[in-house]
Each structure stands twice: as C-alpha cells, then as structure tokens.
C-alpha cells in the first residue's frame, strides 16, 4: 500500500496536478508518525502508511492554514473517517470538492494513541470509532489505495464510549453534573481540542472575542464549563466522532463522550449523520418544515 501511495503522490506532483501532498511520515526515530507536506516528487518516498497514522489531516484544509493553502492545490492522504470531515467542510462551503484531491486509504483501524503501539494492532488499543466503522472503504475519494475491506460494523454500536454514555445516561442530573464538572475541572484551556478539530475552523473563535469577554479565559470551573459546553454546542450535527479532540487533550478529558452523545441526539431528532454526503447540508444550518418539534413543550 505504501508503495502505491508513494507512486500516486509522485505522479500527482510530477504532472503538476497538485502542488502539495499532505500525508504521514516518520519522526526521526521511526517510532511515531507525524503530518508531512510533500512538495517535491522525489520526497514522496517519505510518505508512510500504518496503524500509527492517527491524525485527521483534513484540519490542514481549513482556512486557519493560509500558508499551506499558499503552497497550491493539495492532495490529502485520508482514511474513510477523515474523509467524513472533508465532506462536512464541503457542505459548509469551506472547501470545494474540485479543489482537493483525496487519496483514500482502505483502513484496518488505527491506534487510539501512538504511545500505545507495541507492534501489533489489537482491539483494546483502538478507538471506539474503529470498532463501528462503516467507512473502512473510503467513499468520496479520487483514488482509493489498498485492498477492499470486508469489515461490516456491528448492528448495535459497541465500545467503551457507548458503554460510558449508557452509564452517564443512567445517572441523576446531579450525578451527571458532578461527573462533568469533575472532568472539566482539569481543563487547562490550551485549546488543543479546538486547534486539532477540522471543524473548528473559525479564524476568530468566540473565546477570542474579548469586548466583552464572552467566554472567560480563566481555567477556573466557571471558565472551563463555559468553554467546554460552548465548543460542544458549536459542533452539534457537525462532529463526525473522529476523536481528534480527545486524542489531543493533554489532560484526558473524555470529549468523545460528549461528541457521541450529540451525534445520537442529532440522529434521533433529524435522522442525520454528518460526513456521509457532500450534497446534504447539516441540519443546524437548514430549516425544514418536517423538523420534529418535540423539544417544544
């Protein structure tokens, strides 16, 4: 697969079809992968593909990265789940389909965090998304690299995130409040969750609006709560459960629980899952007379 990927990248750069290939490469000691930006065909051999390729590189397609856009038309190495974020970016008019070449990688899953890798991909070191993945064969790609995967996701979603959501749903409101306040109390306001998220593309985040200061920048319980809840609300109906925010969070706040819960709520209310169809707008930006109004009591 790696060979095919490199050849494809080389070809795209040689023909001038794209100016940069955004993909994965090794660090110096070949123990971790990191994003690489290949601009010369002869550097295409730096591209790698393996279960350590966890990053969702579609963040680099957003307008936050003007210097990357200045390189010229990109091709992006993307897993099926990463492509879902590109699809959302397309539906939200952030990226035009024809402006990016998507090199879809068929996927057998990745590690939850790279430091867990001990040379073998086992279910217990994989994120919940992989166990329920319906996009191991990438859709919406210009090229697909790799053997077709025959994986079919289980009927009822499984994994730690789903189990925990059930446990939290069973709590009393007070218990639930205490649970989240406890988790958010560790937040250090680094904004890694926001920066790594391909859908947090605002150039001026609400936390940066300081006349008045809408979201307190202090990492005290009130400031943390307003930050984490506001960010969650801004992702409703958009978040794809790619898991990048939780992976990036340096203090292990289980952001995936919020993400998946929101996905469930949106699915119940609008029968919508984000990132599958680049022609359908997400429910929060369209009004439809058929929308359920059950929430008005």
């Amino acid at each position: 697969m790696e060979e095919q990927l490199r050849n494809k990248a080389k070809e795209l750069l040689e023909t001038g079809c794209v100016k940069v290939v955004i993909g994965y490469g090794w660090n110096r000691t070949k123990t971790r992968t990191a994003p690489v930006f290949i601009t010369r065909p002869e550097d295409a051999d730096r591209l790698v593909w393996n279960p350590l390729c966890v990053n969702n590189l579609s963040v680099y397609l957003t307008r936050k990265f003007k210097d990357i856009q200045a390189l010229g038309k990109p091709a992006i190495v993307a897993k099926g789940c990463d492509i879902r974020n590109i699809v959302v970016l397309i539906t939200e008019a952030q990226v035009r389909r024809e402006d990016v070449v998507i090199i879809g990688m068929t996927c057998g899953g990745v590690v939850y965090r790279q430091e867990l890798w001990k040379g073998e991909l086992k279910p217990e070191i994989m994120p919940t998304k992989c166990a329920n993945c319906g996009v191991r064969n990438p859709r919406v790609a210009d090229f697909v690299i790799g053997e077709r995967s025959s994986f079919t996701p289980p009927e009822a979603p499984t994994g730690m995130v789903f189990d925990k959501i059930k446990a939290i749903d069973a709590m009393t409101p007070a218990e639930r409040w205490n649970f989240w306040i406890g988790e958010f109390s560790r937040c250090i306001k680094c904004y890694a969750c926001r920066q790594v998220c391909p859908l947090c593309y605002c150039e001026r985040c609400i936390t940066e609006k300081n006349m008045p200061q809408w979201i307190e920048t202090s990492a005290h319980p009130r400031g943390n709560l307003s930050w984490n809840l506001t960010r969650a609300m801004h992702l409703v109906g958009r978040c794809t459960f790619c898991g990048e925010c939780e992976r990036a969070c340096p203090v292990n706040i289980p952001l995936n629980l919020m993400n998946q819960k929101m996905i469930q709520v949106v699915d119940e209310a609008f029968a919508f899952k984000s990132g599958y169809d680049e022609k359908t707008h997400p429910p929060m930006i369209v009004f439809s007379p058929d929308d359920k109004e059950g929430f008005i009591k």
Partner: protein
Amino acid sequence: MADGFLKKDDLNRLRASVAAKGGRFVAPVTVARQTVFKETAPSDEVALGYILARNSYKEFLFPQTEAIAEFSIHRQGVELRGKDADARDTVIFGARPCEAASLASLRAVFTWGFIDESYTKREDKTVVITVACTSGDDACFCTTVGLSPESAAGSDVMFHETDADGWLVYAVTEKGRAFIEAHADAWSAAAPEDAVARTLFMPPVIAGVDIKKIGERLKKKDHYDEPLWAELTRKCIGCGACTYVCPTCHCFDITDEGAAFEGERRKNWDSCQYDSFTLHASGHNPRDAQWKRWRNRFMCKFNFYPEKFGSKGCVGCGRCVRVCPVRLDITEVMEEMSKRP
C-alpha cells in the same frame, strides 16, 4: 555523604510534618490515568513509578489563573483593590532535575525590570525536592542541553533512590538544609548499610545537536525567513499544549472578569502559539503564519533566554514532545538548526 535517609513508608510522615507546620505538599499523583503534580490531600497517594509528571510544577509558583485585583465601579468612580499573592510554604516533592533547573529561568523573567512579587514571594516560600531519575523515555533529552539526572541546579533537596526501600537525602541549598532540620522527625539520620544509590537513567545525547551552533545561528537575523522554518514546523496546529506543559514558558495575559459593575482582574496563562497573541488592534499580525509562531517559541528557548538572561530556555524535559498532537519534536528542529552556521 548523605544528609539523611527517608524510608518510602515514612513519606507520609514527612507530608504530615509539612502539613502540621501549615505548608502545602505538592507531589505527583495519578489523576485520570496520568501522573500530575497536585497539591495533595491526606487521602492522595503519591505516585512513585513515574517518569515525569504531565504538568510542570510551575503552576504552583505561577498559577494558571490568579486574581491580581478586584474592581468595582460606582457613581464616584472606579475602585481598584490590589490582591496580594497567597504565598504559602510549599514543598514540591518529586521534581526531576530538568524541571528544577527551570526555576532560575522563570525567576529571571519575573524579576526582569519589574519584580513580579506574585512569583517571587511564592518561589521564596517553596522547597523543591528533586528525585533523580532512574527511568526515562524516548522524549527525555536533558543530556543534550547540558543537564543530566544528576544536575542539582534549582533543587533545594536531592533524593536518590536506593534498593533499601527509601531515598538518600542530600541538602543542596541552605533552604534545603533548613527544611531537613525542620522536619528532622521524618527521616532517619543515617542510611542503612545497603542503601546504595541506584544507577541513574542517562538519555543518550542526540549527536546531531549542537546548542552553541544553534545559538549562533539564531543570533544572526538572516535565519528569520529561511524556508526551513516553514518546512519543519508548518504541521504545528497552534494549540498551546506545549507551552502550557513547558517548565520555562511563562507568558500570561491580563483579563477582566465579572459583572458590569464589579469584578476581578485576572492574570491567566497565555501562549505564543495562539494567533491572537500578537494580533494588533489594527488587524495586522506580525506572526501571521503558524510556523512564525513556532519560530518564536524556538527563539525564546535558544536565543532570548540564553542571550538576555544567561539561563536555559529549554531544559530537555521532553514534555512538549510528548504532548504535541502532531508530534512536532523540538529536537528534530534543533538537529536541523545545528547543521548550518
């Protein structure tokens, strides 16, 4: 000769002794599957088998958020009341030699021109107990920046692990000696016969890195627009994670919080990795791309700190490497920057 011996079982006696004298005891504790420095409650169990706490203990000297004044607005005008730092006797237990060395750097910044008492008062009341490293990981590189697990700079008391279920205790500073004496009850004066210090973990020196060359190269301003910066660091997504865990990063912002007519003026950590950090009111941003912000971080570590303060900007703790979501490894940049003059 060691100045004492502390049995691991007696650590709680030391904690109790500190608490009895009204001090707070900060130590590594496991929280949410991570080892972090935390002000311990008596029920907290101090973690012992860790490499390095996820956070730096700077937050106990330079809090992440701190009210420095209170204000209220009346018909007669604005009333501003300054707030003094709540400097308490503090013991930091379980620091590592790399981060201990960062205190001199923080002090240099916070006493440069203006004495920031909210830092100095806290540091003056802090005793740093460093435990020399017997384990490490592939992100540790203290030996590459001229430190080592043996370095005592910044520590008041140094602990060395032994196979005799305890630590050999060494006073490093006068403050440390006074601390040992003040808590004499906690340790046995003499070490048992078999208390031999364990071999320390020495991270291999990264051969391609030459700190002197990096310093010289950064002194000349013509490196500023070299394409190398963008090539090496454009993957940075501009989260502030590296700066928040770094023991020498010290930037903060002042913000007012509260209701319309009264509130607090707070001093909050800030990060040079945010695009709003250098955004001017005019809309102009001198660091308008992420690689320029990252270049600033590198400059801060290997030019500003050494040139302005003669102190270390990077102590090689590797925290930024471990925490970075895109694995931007500062040592890889150091290596590239060592290559040409």
